[in-house]
């Protein structure tokens, strides 16, 4: 086949002659089938329009169903009808041209200037909508025709298809006559090329009837025919059209003819678009609105987005995901059932023919499902023919063998918002029915295991497999191009586990240590009676040197560095963890300083291995140490409760004082604020402070050993604020950043439990209870009000950002960074940036967004000089 290339696509408006020319049949009767079930000649299912029933032959081309592409017919309309799609343009044209002579309502010189400007814009490939808009604006404003001097009356456009000149309604026939008068020379000023579209063609006199293949009828189980919505609509049109003709022949009164004309207009309008505002949509007998032409094309489910842009693929699978910390981050667990269905082609050569033959002969899991002969014939391999096929196998054939361990596959979770949403994993065939993935790769996919499903695709060519391995493998995406840091790293239990392991100077016996390390590829463990957690962690560390502040860092005014009393300053020398606690900052996704360092010093492969070892060690630690939280972990002693009560009472007292001061007029307004704003801000601050204090008290009594606290400070899950709310005090509820003020607006109170105008803390949504203690009914109401805002926000944000993303993708999809560093549009070659992002830096290869990490280079050089000096 010779590949063909489209140079351009041009859209034109069909002229009546064109419609008649391409028509193979004039449709005159609304009936479709006769009593025997054969299509009626001159009906909507006329066999000249093509055939859909097997057995019948097309009268135009002689093709059977499936061979004949279908042919257009036409309906001669008894009276002209406005095309809704052009109704607005018609209104503009009527207002822009003379009602008498049909000329454009502007002088010729002026018109030519606009035409010239439009021509220039087209030559430069620029948008000229604004010029046309200007032309329409100017011509509409004209009171008198500059050519014949006729007075102009403004034509009112009544949506969807009616035009009024003063009180007088213009019939489509009048409209068409006026449009006919517009000379070709004036049209370019309105942005219309007369060769492509004459304005009178916007008023239909002939209606094309799409081929039967476009609107196939379906036969229900009962044997009844059910016609397509378009056919239904066309039947309506023909019926009214015939009625109109008959009535006119019989000389019916003009009122009746006018009504029929309007009905014809309605049917043709809804035939073209059944969602036009201003008229009721045409409905099916069942009450369902009909799906007519515009509905077939429009929107997400329409022809463009669903059928043309939407792609469906083979060699893919989808199922629920679940975690498996025992597999590598670059692996994916594939259920055996799926592995037996998906195949990888082996392109048979003299070198691999024996291997291929073995797959054919096998009768269990990694066996061949199909073979494809060079002539393209696919043969299923079954027990009875496998010997024969193995015998016949020759180089050049393709053997489709089942998916097995070590194959490369693409793994994807929607929404695919960034490139890390599709990564290449190596297959591990496992029992049961879910895809298994290492929890450390959850952040890039934004996956969790509450029922999420993911898709898997098997690359089918060697090129695709190589590309997947080299460009899409998980380890290629540890560093995110978004911020230049690792996006894959420890989460939840990994962080808690390593925190438990490395915090302070915990000792582990030899047995315990071996238990922790046995599954990892750690070899050089010295024989000792006791190991510290820091030593154990050091065994999985590559040789790196690093110093940083951990997540647990309290942010002291003066940092004591190595001598930090909270064990929050991490010192790693030569792969030995000397000081500090390993937590989210060290190994977490998004933060992971250690991962960052390893990937820069030893590369992606080593980083992957480290993450594998780190996650496994952490899981082993947390399972052997034991880690759990329950309701009693947020229990605080009576003493603490009293202290918190005291703090809140004081705050409430202060609020009351503020309100009193405000009412007496003693409150001093803050600069640039009104008195009310000042009061609100002061109250908010006071109550916020109270909650923070309550939280501090609760935190002190919960202690550092509390598992909930451990999770919060190490960054594994939750925050101290969450704990405060659980244990001490929920605090102020807010809607739109203000205390809750709405409710009974007329009496200025939130609930009938309060006096009108009560500004006190309780009346405006301060919740003093904790989640553990429980909320009072009033508090619960305020909490629900605040909580709802959050829900609405997320719902609105996701839909908005989704649409924004769609627009961005459409706008940017053809941009590419060329080898010279410029960013260019692919089809036109238009230049967008002279240097990608002004600095030409690939953020994935940058250090946390910066092009050069000067500190690191300095450190390395100093280190080198030191060694050289010795």
């Amino acid at each position, binding site marked *: 086949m010779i590949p063909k290339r489209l140079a351009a696509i041009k859209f034109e408006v069909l002229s009546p002659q064109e419609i008649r020319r391409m028509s193979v049949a004039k449709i005159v009767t609304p009936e479709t089938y006769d009593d025997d079930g054969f299509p009626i000649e001159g009906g909507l299912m006329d066999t000249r329009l093509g055939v859909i029933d097997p057995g019948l032959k097309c009268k135009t081309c002689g093709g059977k169903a499936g061979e004949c592409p279908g042919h257009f017919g036409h309906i001669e309309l008894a009276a002209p009808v406005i095309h809704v799609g052009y109704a607005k343009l018609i209104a503009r044209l009527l207002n822009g041209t003379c009602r008498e002579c049909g000329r454009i309502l502007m002088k010729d010189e002026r018109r030519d200037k606009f035409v010239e400007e439009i021509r220039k814009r087209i030559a430069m490939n620029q948008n000229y909508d604004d010029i046309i808009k200007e032309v329409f604006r100017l011509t509409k404003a004209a009171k008198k025709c500059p050519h014949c001097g006729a007075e102009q009356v403004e034509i009112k456009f009544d949506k969807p298809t009616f035009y009024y000149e003063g009180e007088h309604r213009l019939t489509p026939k009048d409209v068409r006559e006026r449009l006919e008068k517009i000379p070709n020379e004036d049209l370019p000023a309105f942005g219309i090329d007369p060769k492509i579209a004459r304005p009178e063609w916007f008023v239909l006199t002939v209606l094309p009837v799409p081929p039967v293949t476009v609107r196939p009828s379906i036969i229900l189980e009962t044997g009844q025919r059910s016609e397509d919505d378009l056919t239904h609509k066309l039947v309506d049109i023909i019926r009214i059209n015939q009625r109109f003709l008959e009535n006119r022949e019989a000389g019916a009164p003009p009122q009746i003819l006018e009504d029929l004309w309007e009905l014809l207009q309605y049917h043709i309008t809804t035939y073209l678009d059944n969602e036009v505002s201003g008229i009721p949509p045409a409905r099916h007998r069942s009450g369902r609105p009909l799906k007519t032409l515009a509905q077939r094309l429009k929107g997400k489910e329409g022809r463009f987005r669903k059928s043309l842009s939407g792609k469906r693929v083979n060699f893919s699978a989808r199922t629920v995901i679940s975690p498996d910390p025992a597999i590598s981050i670059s692996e994916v667990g594939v259920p055996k059932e799926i592995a037996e269905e998906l195949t990888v082609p082996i392109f048979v050569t003299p070198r691999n023919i024996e291997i291929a033959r073995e797959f054919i002969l096998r009768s269990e899991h990694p066996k061949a499902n199909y073979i494809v002969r060079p002539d393209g014939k696919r043969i299923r391999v079954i027990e009875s023919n496998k010997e024969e096929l193995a015998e016949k196998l020759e180089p050049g054939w393709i053997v489709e063998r089942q998916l097995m361990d070590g194959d490369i596959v693409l793994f994807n979770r929607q929404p695919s918002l960034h490139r890390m949403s599709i990564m290449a994993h190596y297959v591990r065939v496992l029992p049961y029915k879910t895809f298994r993935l290492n929890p450390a790769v959850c952040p890039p996919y934004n996956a969790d295991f509450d029922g999420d499903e993911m898709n898997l695709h098997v690359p089918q060519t060697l090129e695709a497999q190589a590309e997947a391995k080299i460009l899409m493998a998980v380890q290629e995406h540890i560093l995110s191009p978004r911020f230049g840091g690792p996006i894959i790293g420890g989460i939840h239990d990994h962080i808690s586990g390593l925190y438990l392991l490395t915090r302070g100077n915990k000792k582990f016996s030899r047995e315990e240590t071996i238990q922790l390390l046995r599954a990892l590829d750690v070899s050089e463990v010295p024989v000792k009676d006791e190991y510290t957690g820091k030593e154990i962690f050091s065994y999985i560390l590559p040789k790196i040197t690093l110093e940083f502040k951990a997540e647990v860092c309290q942010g002291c005014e003066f940092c004591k560095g190595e001598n930090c009393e909270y064990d929050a300053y991490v010192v790693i020398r030569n792969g030995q963890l000397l000081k500090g606690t390993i937590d989210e900052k060290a190994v977490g996704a998004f933060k992971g300083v250690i991962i960052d360092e390893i990937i820069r010093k030893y590369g992606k492969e080593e980083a992957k291995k480290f993450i594998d070892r780190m996650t496994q060690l952490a899981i082993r630690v947390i399972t052997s140490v034991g880690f759990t939280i329950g309701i009693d972990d947020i229990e605080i002693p009576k003493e603490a409760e009293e202290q918190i009560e005291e703090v809140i009472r004081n705050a409430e007292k202060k609020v009351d004082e503020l309100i009193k001061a405000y009412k007496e007029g003693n409150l001093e307004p803050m600069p640039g604020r009104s008195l009310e704003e000042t009061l609100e801000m002061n109250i908010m601050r006071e109550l916020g402070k109270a909650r923070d204090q309550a939280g501090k008290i609760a935190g002190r009594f919960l202690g550092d050993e509390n598992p909930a606290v451990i999770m919060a400070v190490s960054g594994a899950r939750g925050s101290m604020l969450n704990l405060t709310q659980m244990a001490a005090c929920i605090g102020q509820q807010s809607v739109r950043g203000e205390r809750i003020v709405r409710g009974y607006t007329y009496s200025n109170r939130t609930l009938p439990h309060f006096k009108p105008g009560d500004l006190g803390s309780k009346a405006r949504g301060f919740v003093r209870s904790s989640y553990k203690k429980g909320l009072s009914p009033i508090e619960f109401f305020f909490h629900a009000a605040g909580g709802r805002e959050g829900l609405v926000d997320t719902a609105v944000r996701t839909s908005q950002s989704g649409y924004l993303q769609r627009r961005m993708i459409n706008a940017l999809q053809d941009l590419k960074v060329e080898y010279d560093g410029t960013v260019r549009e692919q089809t036109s070659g238009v230049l967008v940036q002279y240097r990608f992002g*002004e600095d*030409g830096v690939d953020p994935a290869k940058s250090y946390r967004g910066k092009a050069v990490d000067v500190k690191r280079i300095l450190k390395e050089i100093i280190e080198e000089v030191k060694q050289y000096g010795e």
Partner: protein
Amino acid sequence: MKIRLQDHILVPKHEILSKEEAEELLKILGISKEQLPKIKASDPIVVEIGAKPGDIIKITRKSLTAGKSVFYRLVV
């Protein structure tokens, strides 16, 4: 009193490329003039430096990421 736009701190440096420089630039990029980003001849800064349609303007901006970045635009 007319203020020179160029003196404002937020207005980057605009210069007209000489014919040779312009040709050199297009040769390096391997594109025609029409494929360059455009700027209107009625743009105040273009009026001020006296560039005519068809000229190429070199804009030297301060950049947070790159320190200094150069941009070229075609006057239309």
